[in-house]
């Protein structure tokens, strides 16, 4: 299993450009998440999904959009990039069963700089 994969690893955008951060997991997990991590800070939840076709906002959703058409993929879209979106973006997934299986598996991250 590859686990959670993210592309690209690095990207530089100009203000106003748009891009999609890709996230794929091959563990058949229902739950997927997008976080951003600013320098010296913890992770903040942008959007999450509890299954294909279902998404919901997290703590900092403004400026982002997501979709979940399949169990495996959870892309994050930036429509009009702003310098405030300079951050490292992590995708994560987890499988919730009846027991406490809350462990989240993280992708390697995408470092995004908006100039």
């Amino acid at each position, binding site marked *: 299993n590859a686990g959670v994969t993210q592309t690209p690893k690095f990207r530089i955008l100009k203000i106003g450009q748009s891009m999609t951060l890709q996230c794929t997991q091959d563990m058949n997990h229902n739950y997927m998440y997008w976080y951003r991590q600013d320098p010296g800070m*913890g*992770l903040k939840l942008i959007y*999450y999904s509890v299954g294909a076709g279902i998404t919901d906002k*997290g703590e900092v959703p403004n400026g982002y959009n997501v979709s979940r058409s399949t169990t495996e993929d959870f892309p994050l879209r930036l429509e009009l990039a702003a310098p405030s979106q300079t951050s490292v973006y*992590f995708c994560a997934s987890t499988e*919730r069963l009846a027991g406490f299986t*809350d462990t*989240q598996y993280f*992708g*390697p991250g995408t470092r995004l700089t908006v100039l």
Partner: protein
Amino acid sequence: EDKVVQSPLSLVVHEGDTVTLNCSYEVTNFRSLLWYKQEKKAPTFLFMLTSSGIEKKSGRLSSILDKKELFSILNITATQTGDSAIYLCAVVIQGAQKLVFGQGTRLTINP
């Protein structure tokens, strides 16, 4: 508003020292608390705690949860330079299907 606070934010010690990292929380509906270690890349899972007073151990690392006082500690004994990392605490909210992370503690172990 659900909140997770870690302290200290930064800690520098010498190799061989013992450290204690703190995580306190105020959340609407607690399900579990997770500790992660983050080196250069993605966070890696350390512990999941759901019950008060039961210590989880993995080598030199251990952690315990106090659900009455709403905090958890992560202990690292006989620290090594490889323990240098950011340690993240997160609380899983029951029913909300999501985690709330603390700011992290940046631990530096000097030789």
